[in-house]
């Protein structure tokens, strides 16, 4: 499902920092992988590259058999919105939109008909247990609830791939566990491939496979 072949990423800062250096790995369909490593090891960069938010300096990334390198910006975006859902550490909800509107966002961008969007959004919010908070603004929700909305948004099109960047990083332990459990449950329901970037050992251990990064290279790849 996800194939990285010799992917490197350099940032053109003054010193030319190497964020990723010749990374190879493959994630088959339906697998749940955690990516761990200390700060600056290249975890988030890796996730951004896989999600098509950024492009590698060299190497090739294949998503569902499609090579990202050859795609234009807009085609990359299309691939992203058809196949990938994002969950961010800081939720990245739009503060002026209601929960329902936030969840509906990707669907609107794809030009779905309104009725269908409405149905799907409500269905998703019910899925994450927020069917009573449809018209609330993000500011009116707790951190955990916000992340649930973010997850609902990421799942809005039932993407085959779910990318989560420190999904529990901004939550207390209890809420973090609930969110993690939600992700696990959803994966099983939907059969999605999930990549979770985390520096939380417990979160990593909950995943069947863990890839460890250090200084931009793969330091370990283990299955439980």
């Amino acid at each position: 499902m996800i194939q990285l072949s010799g992917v490197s990423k350099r940032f053109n800062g003054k010193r030319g920092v190497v964020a990723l250096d010749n990374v190879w790995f493959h994630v088959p369909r339906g697998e749940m992988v955690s990516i761990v490593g200390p700060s600056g090891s290249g975890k988030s960069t890796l996730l951004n590259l896989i999600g098509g938010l950024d492009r590698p300096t060299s190497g090739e990334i294949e998503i569902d058999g499609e090579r990202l390198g050859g795609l234009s910006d807009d085609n990359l975006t299309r691939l992203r919105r058809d196949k990938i859902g994002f969950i961010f550490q800081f939720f990245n909800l739009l503060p002026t939109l209601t929960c329902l509107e936030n969840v509906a966002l990707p669907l609107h961008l794809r030009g779905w008909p309104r009725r269908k969007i409405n149905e799907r959004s409500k269905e998703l919010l019910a899925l994450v247990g927020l069917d009573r908070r449809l018209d609330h603004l993000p500011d009116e929700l707790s951190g955990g609830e916000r992340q649930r909305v973010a997850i609902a948004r990421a799942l809005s099109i039932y993407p085959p791939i779910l990318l989560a960047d420190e999904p529990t990083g901004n939550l207390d332990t209890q809420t973090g566990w609930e969110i993690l459990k939600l992700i696990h449950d959803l994966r099983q329901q939907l059969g999605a491939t999930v990549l979770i970037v985390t520096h939380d050992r417990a979160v990593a251990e909950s995943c069947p496979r863990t890839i460890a990064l250090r200084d931009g290279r793969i330091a370990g790849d283990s299955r439980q």
Partner: protein
Amino acid sequence: MILLRLITWPYVRKHLTRTALTLTGILLGVAVFVGMHTANQSVLFAFQRTIDRIAGATQLQVTAGETGFDESTLERVQAVPGVRAAAPVIQAVANIGIRGEGNLLILGVDMLGDRSLRDYDLEEDDEGAVDDPLVFLARADSLIITRPFALRNHLTVNSTLVLDTVDGPKRFTVRGIMRSGGLASAFGGNLAVMDIYAAQRMFGRGRKFDRIDLAVNEGERIDAVQVRIERTLGPGFQVRTPGSRGREIESIAAVYRLSANITSLFALFIGMFIIYNTFAIAVTQRRAEIGILRALGATQSQIRRLFLTESAVAGAIGSVAGAAAGILLARALAKYIGGLLSEVYGIGERAEEVSANPNLIGLAVTAGVVTSIAAAFLPARNAARIDPVKALQKGKYESLSEGENRARRSAAVISALSAFACLGLGGRGVLLYTGYLLTLIAALLLTPAAGLWLSRLIRPVLRRVRPVEGALAADSLIQTPRRTSGTIAALMLSVSLVIALGGMARASYASIVQWMNIALNPDLFVSATQNLTARSYRFPPEVGERIQNVPGVAQVQLVRDARVLYRGRPVMLVAADIAGLVSRARLPAIEGDTDRMYREAAAGKGVIVSDNLAALENLHAGDILELAAPAGMLRLPIAGVVIDYSDQQGSILIERTLFRRYWNDDTVDLFRVYLEPRASESAVRQEILNRVGSTTRLFVLTNREVRDYILRLTDQWFSLTYVQIAVAVLVAVLGIVNTLTVSITDRRRELGVLKAVGALRRQIRGAVWIESLTIGFLGLMLGLALGAFQLFYALEISRRDIAGIRLEYQYPLKIALALAPVMLGAALVAALGPAETAVRGSLVEALEYE
């Protein structure tokens, strides 16, 4: 100031585009102010210089408005004790058929006496062909030209030059060339001197002089002689120093000057909002920085000073650049104004050089800096009041406090009520302008609240149209009133200005067309000059009989137009056969009874005045109008007031016989020709040209041509307002660009999220565009509303203070409709750059942006 270098400079460097945009706001305002005034002053200066240079040693000049006076006046002036030398002058502008030369100012003088007033400083001819004063005097075709004109056209002594005279084109011979400088540099060197009697003939002046120039005996007081001459000649004559004669032209240019002032004031005003906007944004964006500074021990006044100094520096840079741009602009404008004055008022002038008046530039730069500082005052105060602790915390800081909103609203209500009160108190003069100002203030104070309210109102609509981009655009406006309200205010002002000016233009148009339908109904107009406003050439009345004899002509009406002074105001005196006139073109009286009005006027027992003159001088039917004429005081009751657009300064219609008696002048400026029912317009026109035009210089204009000409003049007048519109729109666009540039920075994360969840490039672009369109829309809506008030005040001011013309209040719906695409288009254009920046922005950085 060290803070300025450490804090401001890096910020400016980072936001170079926006800094430049901010400066442009002030720059434009100052440029327009300097440009329009410099051009105006240059033209007036050129007028005055021409007057001065032609005046030579002249200490006093005797005129009778534009009408001229009998030759015998000369001897009466010469006989006044204390007069050393008095010489008659005919001064008129002739069009010469040389490409690029335009007009030639003809000075008809009496060579015998004139040299004691003017130094002709003739070149000695090296060929030995001495320029002989006797030859100059003896030959009617003698001409003295200037060296620059001679050089430009390769003319030498004995060269010939064809000039149009009333009797058709005539060949003139150069009998002398004046050295450059002095008299030769008047009218940009396009000056020719001929014998006064030759000039009388050339321009159809009969036995009249336009003016007498004179010098007083040594030891005599000029004012004493002036009084003596005035007493000798009576009230129909003006005795002035050459220096004061330029003031009449200035008074004519007053309307233009007012228009220039309003335009630049608005440009500056709008510029002020851009600056306010920029600083308001800067203060919010630099909140954390200010917090750190405060935490490190900067006092409130230091912070305030920092921002005020920034704005002063920005204002100074913008103003100086604006002044420079204004001088460039003046070059283009001077030509335009010169053309306007010559077309509308029939006085031609060439402004050869544009000279910047240091006082004007000083004033403009001061105004620019003061505007800039004033605009930054509130943001600077807000910056100083920032709580260092709160500033360092992240979170919402944009929205206006409820208290601030309430204070604004109450101030707005008070302003609006005061404005109403001003109107209620009569609304004249100062009250009128105060009311106007208060209305503007109320509108400006209400802008943020109104903007917010409108944004909330249209959010569902936008959301319906574009669920994501639309809702977000509206939210962006709702969330950040500080960022947008300045721009919306600027837009509102621009739009309302356009509505006001457009409304006036349309109302004038409608009225003028209506007037033309009644007053200008002859089939043909026979004029001595190609444009109807220049009155250089005049016909002898016999030409009228010759036109009457042309087959197909049913009626010929003789009209004489001349500018005369009425209570110091240069008004247009129209002398015509009123009985004939009213049989064809009958304007209804708006004061007095129409039938009686014409009956009395035709009998020479009354005069008819235009409504604008009546309004400006507070005249009413039945009042006695006193008009000083060379042959004595003309005292007649006002038989009635009609709506008449003949002249911006007002017009007075009198019976032709009265004019003949009081001005002893039977020349004609214009023949109004009516055709027999079945006569062909073109055939009669040709026949007039053949029969009369062969021996008399004349132009036959059809009704259509005259109407087009008048509408073109009106257009030309209003084309000044197009400059204003252009400036207003430009400044407004700058404001939008400014706001959007900030907006896309502020919305980086939001746009990043959109991209991350699958927004395509066009969708991102669309989001920025919609925000811009929304700003444009809000500005447009508020502007259209404010425009209704502005138009009201514009009409009132023009009626009561400028032209006295009564115009019907009619909201210019068509213009409003036309404005929508213009403003929204401008908003879209303004969004192009920022949208691309938004599309190109890095996604990863955007998402990490906090």
